[in-house]
């Protein structure tokens, strides 16, 4: 009896700790979101107000009227197309690494190490080349860089997923007279569908959240939402409403996507170290 009371007390304490902790981690997100629904007076009231009198959508209306919201569309195009490209090229490459041991572990390690280099060091020469070829501020230029930067991740993750599926089916398909491409298309891809899906989502999020590549390689035409947020920085603080509304527009899609991804989250962010 006494023991079970102690146990439920312990559980209660852990609950309290868990709730406090979660609230602490969510508070900044709450604050960011809430500012976008405040009036200017509420944003700049002292002491700060923790909840708005009523939900105002004025900040969003302004973003859509000025066309700033279109930068979310740019993010969508750039992240979407580069994800599709990286997924296709990366997955077939991963298949070769996984099944034929092409290049051995060294090639696999070299590929993933390409992703760990500081983006600023990569984007500098790329920028110089893009100026030369007229690719600055074009969809193509940004998509090419995101594809290249995300390829290592796709190859790495898909290699792991492909290694997880049994090879026997592919052999059987070959015996049945499938061509090698048919084996890939009709056996391998369907077998690692979940992995393809999860990897694609993460690839998309990386491109979507990138700041420095877009900062350097865009001007006005293909500005992504992350760069747009920083356009409101500094100087006049009356742009807070825009900072927060723009950030919310860019963040909500990710939250929605990730909500469906819980199962694959650990594997995705740990570069496959945790099979989860």
């Amino acid at each position, binding site marked *: 009896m006494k023991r079970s009371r102690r146990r439920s007390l312990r559980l209660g304490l852990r609950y309290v700790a868990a709730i406090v902790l979660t609230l602490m981690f969510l508070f900044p997100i709450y604050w960011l979101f809430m500012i976008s629904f405040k009036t200017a007076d509420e944003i700049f009231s002292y002491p700060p107000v923790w909840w708005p009198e009523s939900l105002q959508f004025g900040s969003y209306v302004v973003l859509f009227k000025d066309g700033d919201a279109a930068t979310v569309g740019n993010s969508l195009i750039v992240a979407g197309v580069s994800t599709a490209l990286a997924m296709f090229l990366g997955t077939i490459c991963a298949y070769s690494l996984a*099944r034929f041991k092409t290049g051995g572990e060294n090639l696999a390690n070299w590929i993933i190490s390409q992703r760990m280099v500081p983006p600023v060091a990569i984007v500098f020469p790329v920028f110089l080349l893009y100026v030369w070829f007229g690719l600055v501020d074009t969809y193509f230029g940004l998509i090419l860089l995101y594809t290249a930067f995300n390829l290592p991740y796709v190859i790495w993750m898909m290699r792991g997923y492909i290694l997880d599926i049994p090879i026997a089916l592919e052999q059987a398909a070959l015996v049945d007279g499938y061509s090698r491409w048919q084996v890939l298309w009709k056996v391998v891809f369907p077998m690692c569908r979940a992995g393809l899906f999860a990897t694609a989502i993460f690839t998309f999020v990386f491109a979507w959240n990138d700041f420095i590549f877009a900062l350097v390689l865009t001007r006005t035409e293909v500005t992504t939402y992350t760069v747009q947020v920083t356009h409101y920085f500094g100087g006049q603080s009356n742009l807070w409403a825009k900072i927060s509304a723009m950030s919310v527009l860019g963040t909500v899609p990710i939250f929605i996507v990730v909500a469906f991804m819980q199962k694959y989250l650990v594997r995705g962010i740990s570069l496959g170290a945790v099979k989860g």
Partner: protein
Amino acid sequence: MSAAGTIKKPQLAEQGFKYQLIAPSIFVLLLIGIFPLVYLLIVSFQGITMMDNDTSFHGLRNYAALFGDTRLWEALLHTLLFTAIALPLELILGLLMAQLFIDHLPGRQVFVALLVLPVVIAPIVSGATWSLMFDNRFGPINQIIGWLTGEEATLLWTISPDLVYPAILVAEIWQWTPFMFLLLLAALSGVDKSQLEAASIDGAGYWRIFFRIVLPAIWPVMAVAILIRGLDLFRLFDIVWALTRGGPGTMTETISIFTYVKGFQQFETSYTAAVALIIIILLSLVVFLALRRVGLSR
């Protein structure tokens, strides 16, 4: 780990096909990886600046200048400082959080789903969020400090030299502790429970069990987490950019910010090329060796 990968089936290994599959990826990687590297090498031997498009051969002048550039070394120092403080804190906090959630706790999935949200936010957005939080007048941080101390707080978090480091570290740790938490929670769930019980029956204390059984069991995952976060911290840019832009002065300038400022604001093209080249070569090497050690590819 799957056994399938190790079964040798010569009929599958058709030479042409295997290279056909990797060719496009390798092409793109070389295009963005090697081509710029060669270009960097050439430019770094020249003398291009904003004023002067001097493409004559300057030898190692830019590389020699690296050694005398105190701003560069300070940027490196700042970067290492951020890493040395943030990484252990994220690791320990993440581990503590994982311990809190490892035992049965109804509704755990909901907590975990909410706790990982900071990880998926764009770093530049979380930097922006914290700059709103830290505002000396209209931000809630000073307000809360005011409540706790009983007197009005007017701390200039993103301006005052004593406070910029704590401010950046708070934002950084807020965003990435959940990353550690998630990975370590998964690793801890994999620890063999019966082994823990056996040790506990044998009278081993909490710490003894932790260091002898738990830590070795979760180490492979922990090593990967440390590697990923360490490399991320080394290229720290977005959060600092949003909060301080490297200021006040160059006090919080990281290697990435230094490179950006030199290359894209001061247009010291050839010098920046030398910096970028060194960074790329050193880091590729470090990562390559570290990965082989950690054995992530197996």
